[in-house]
């Protein structure tokens, strides 16, 4: 352990640490642009030059390893002179457009120029001008401002795993640009906005909207995927202006997925429901006050329950709602004697587990795994930042194996893969089980007759039998599969045989929370698929849109349209108005306090960052009042904290006590894939929840638009005589729709990817099934 002295302070650092590391540990600030703690060392901005005694020239602190007895001066005359010299060079070509630059006020160059820049420039020649680039709907560019720190380039290479930006050219002709003017497609692309130390890359949706010093910063938690990324929400005049990451090494590190960063746009959408609304006999909507709307709901509920019994009601909630809301919803339902409660709208046959399914480990532990088996996970789109952790694991030597219905690019090395059409997924996973049995492992009483292990399955088995830290992870797609229980049974057997931990990747921000507070059907109750399969007279919808989200949206829509009463508690009026009878405006996550439980079982509470819009009220308050109006006991909470204390008196300890991934084994039946073309339907990354769906910038991205198309292998397109980029008729059962045809040769030739949860595909029917493509 070498020790050194920086500005007179002595410190001992780890072997290989740099002067910058040592300075950071001592709390000494060394000016820098290209250095970033999460990225590789580039040492190309030279701003961090420091004086090192006995060294003939100033040295860059970020790239100078500490040696024993080194004496460093960061603020000596020589160091300052060197830093000022670098600053003068950097400013030669940097435009003086701070007044119209969005980075103004939060610009590292601006800040450091105050400390190190001259008060006037000695440079009289014309400045360099760089043609602007179009990076897509999320990132605004002003490339003349670029100082070539290469942080954005390194982020793509090292963190996002997709090098979309590069620095072609040499010397002063160097420009940061994408290849052939393509737009960036990474689901983590927005992070380059935070990384850019100047105003070259800024947020497009936030452009010219506010100055940084006008914004109040409020902590919050992302309501989208099950990671629970920590957010810093920037607000002004009771309005959310933008969302930035709040650093948390255990969860999102210093990153955010684009979904977490840009979905806020929906909070200010015109489609927000701001007053309670009821529909009259003629089908016209009227704005009413809260007492009238609530009385209408409770009056109708009483009449219908009296007539048909409490079992005639179905309670469906989004797993993106808070713990407090979900707790009160199930309490309300149970107090009425109804056990039809669920948040798992996307599941056909939910997997029976001993407790609430979860990741099975801490998020940060994922990057330390050395054997990983991913089953049915489109993980880059489901949990972008967890995919990033997996990439890190693979980079440090982990072997990643994939069993899935599509061979998507995970942007890292995949050791072995078993890719099968959706109906063949069980058979594919069974191959691995058979291979393990052949290798002498005990798989218990699993009957797997007729399954023959392929070479890939054997190699996968061999790999999984080595290594020490292992996990088998079931993705959202596996959980949505009609044979989910069979997949889970096999996954559990494989995990036990290989000594791996079995984990579930929950689909939503509060999927785990919904489970632990019992937002699940009780004895004799129906799950979500059951509530639509056996239509109810009354539906109470909390923040969900079953006509898109349900495993079979056609059946769900028919059930909603035939119901006598549909009460929609929702922040938006555009979709619910088609089938609801009463719409009650509830607060999205920014307008209410609440809590989410993420995939690792972490309970994260947050406060409202802005007041509710218009007459909107937090859903927990609405449910409390509904409970009182129905004459139910135990709805006297004054704060969301009281609700949380009732739901989880011991807090996170209660959560942990209710987590259990043990799967109730089932017989394996689906061992033969079906004939013909099959639909591969996933929840698209930018359709996950009500907010994401309504964020225009996300919809305009590559992923947003990809969900509106159908994707097929080139061989299939050729066989059917179809044309890429042209509309094609997609037929599933009795329904059909018209989608743009796109080519993806990573798909199997018997599979057509048609997204679920999309307005263009919701008329097609269930996520799983055969389909056909016809020429227009």
């Amino acid at each position: 352990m070498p020790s050194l002295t920086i500005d007179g302070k002595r410190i001992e650092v780890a072997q290989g640490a740099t002067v910058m590391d040592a300075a950071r540990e001592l709390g000494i600030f060394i000016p820098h642009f290209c250095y970033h703690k999460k990225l590789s060392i580039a040492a190309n901005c030279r701003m961090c030059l420091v004086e090192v005694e006995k060294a003939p020239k100033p040295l860059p602190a970020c790239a100078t390893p500490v040696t024993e007895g080194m004496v460093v001066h960061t603020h000596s005359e020589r160091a300052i002179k060197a830093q000022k010299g670098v600053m003068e060079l950097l400013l030669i070509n940097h435009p003086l457009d701070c007044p119209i630059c969005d980075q103004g006020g939060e610009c590292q160059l601006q800040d450091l120029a105050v400390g190190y820049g001259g008060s006037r420039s000695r440079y009289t020649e014309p400045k360099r001008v760089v043609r602007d680039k179009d990076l897509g709907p999320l990132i605004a560019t002003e490339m003349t401002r670029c100082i070539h720190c290469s942080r954005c380039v390194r982020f793509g290479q090292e963190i996002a795993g997709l090098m979309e930006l590069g620095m072609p050219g040499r010397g002063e002709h160097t420009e940061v640009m994408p290849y052939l003017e393509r737009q960036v497609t990474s689901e983590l692309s927005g992070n380059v906005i935070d990384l850019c130390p100047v105003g070259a890359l800024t947020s497009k949706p936030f452009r010219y909207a506010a100055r940084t010093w006008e914004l109040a910063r409020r902590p919050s938690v992302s309501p989208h995927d099950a990671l629970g990324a920590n957010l810093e929400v920037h607000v002004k005049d009771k309005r959310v202006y933008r969302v930035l990451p709040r650093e948390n090494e255990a969860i999102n590190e210093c990153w955010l997925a684009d979904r977490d960063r840009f979905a806020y746009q929906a909070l200010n959408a015109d489609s927000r429901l701001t007053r309670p609304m009821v529909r009259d006999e003629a089908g016209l909507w009227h704005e009413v006050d809260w007492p009238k709307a609530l009385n209408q709901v409770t009056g109708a509920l009483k009449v219908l329950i009296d007539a048909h019994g409490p079992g005639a009601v179905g309670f469906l909630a989004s797993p993106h709602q808070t713990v407090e809301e979900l707790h009160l919803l199930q309490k309300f339902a149970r107090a009425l004697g109804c056990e039809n409660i669920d948040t798992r709208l996307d599941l056909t046959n939910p997997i029976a587990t001993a407790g609430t399914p979860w990741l099975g480990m801490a998020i940060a532990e994922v990057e330390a795994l050395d054997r990983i088996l991913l089953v049915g996970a489109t993980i880059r789109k489901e949990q972008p930042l967890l995919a990033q952790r997996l990439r890190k694991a693979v980079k440090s030597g982990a072997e990643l194996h994939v069993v899935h219905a599509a061979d998507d690019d995970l942007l890292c090395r995949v050791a072995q893969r078993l890719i099968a059409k959706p109906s063949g997924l069980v058979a594919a996973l069974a191959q691995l089980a058979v291979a393990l049995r052949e290798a002498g492992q005990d798989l218990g009483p699993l009957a797997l007759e007729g399954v023959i292990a392929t070479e890939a399955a054997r190699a996968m088995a061999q790999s999984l039998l080595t290594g020490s830290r292992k996990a088998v992870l079931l993705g959202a797609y596996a959980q949505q599969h009609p044979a989910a229980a069979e997949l889970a049974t096999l996954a559990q057997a494989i995990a036990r045989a290989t000594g791996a931990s079995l984990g579930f990747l929950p689909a939503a921000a509060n999927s785990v929370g919904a489970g632990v507070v019992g937002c699940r059907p009780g004895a004799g109750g129906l799950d979500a698929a059951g509530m639509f399969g056996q239509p109810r007279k009354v539906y109470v919808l909390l923040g969900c849109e079953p006509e898109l989200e349900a495993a079979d949206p056609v059946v769900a829509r028919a059930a909603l349209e035939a119901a006598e009463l549909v009460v929609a508690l929702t922040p938006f009026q555009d979709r619910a108005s088609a089938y609801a009878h009463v719409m009650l405006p509830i607060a999205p996550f920014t307008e209410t306090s609440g809590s989410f439980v993420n995939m690792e079982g972490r309970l994260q509470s947050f406060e409202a960052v802005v007041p509710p819009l218009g007459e909107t009220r937090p859903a927990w308050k609405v449910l409390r009042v509904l409970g009182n109006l129905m004459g139910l006991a135990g709805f006297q909470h004054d704060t969301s904290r009281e609700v949380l204390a009732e739901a989880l008196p011991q807090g996170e300890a209660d959560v942990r006590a209710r987590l259990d991934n043990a799967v109730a084994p089932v017989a394996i039946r689906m061992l033969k894939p079906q004939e013909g073309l099959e639909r591969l339907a996933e929840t698209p990354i930018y359709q996950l929840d009500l907010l994401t769906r309504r964020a225009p910038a996300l919809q305009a991205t590559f992923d947003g638009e990809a969900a509106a198309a159908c994707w097929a292998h080139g061989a299939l397109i050729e066989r059917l005589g179809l044309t890429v980029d042209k509309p094609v008729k997609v037929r599933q059962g009795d329904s059909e729709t018209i989608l743009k045809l796109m080519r993806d040769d990573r798909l199997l030739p018997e599979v057509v990817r048609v997204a679920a949860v999309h307005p263009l595909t919701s008329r097609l029917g269930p996520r799983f099934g055969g389909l056909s493509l016809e020429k227009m």
Partner: protein
Amino acid sequence: MSLLSSEALAQIDREIAKYPPEHKQSAVMSALRIAQVEKGWISPEVIEFVAQYLEMPPIAVYEVATFYNMYDLKPVGRHKITLCTNLPCQLQGAGEIAEHLKKRLGVDFGETTADGRFTLKEGECMGACGDGPLCLHNNHEMHVKLTPEQVDRLLDEMK
């Protein structure tokens, strides 16, 4: 069908074999050179082909191709003449040679004659300062101690 001939691919494979298998990308400069010899210039198709062949992002190949000025990212004439105009050559009369070349060919640096025969380029030091002024013909052949008469002779030889 491959973009490059099997001979070119064999040459590239030979370059790849010089590096450990996980460092295939180290052959990028050779691959671009071999592709340029065969195709005459480095088109976007060549970049994407090399990227795919070496399992690199296209932008990373493009970075290399734009960094070195001997790669031609636009079509060039049959004869590409790159004249060094750095200081040692300038001191030995490179300026005069440049003027002569421009006048003879009727093009400026970075331009190609209308008949597609010549491209004139400005180059950086080629490491033979003692023999300046000098130029490079089609990246491979160097002509030293140039005089206007010698330039005329050379141009006449280049059909």
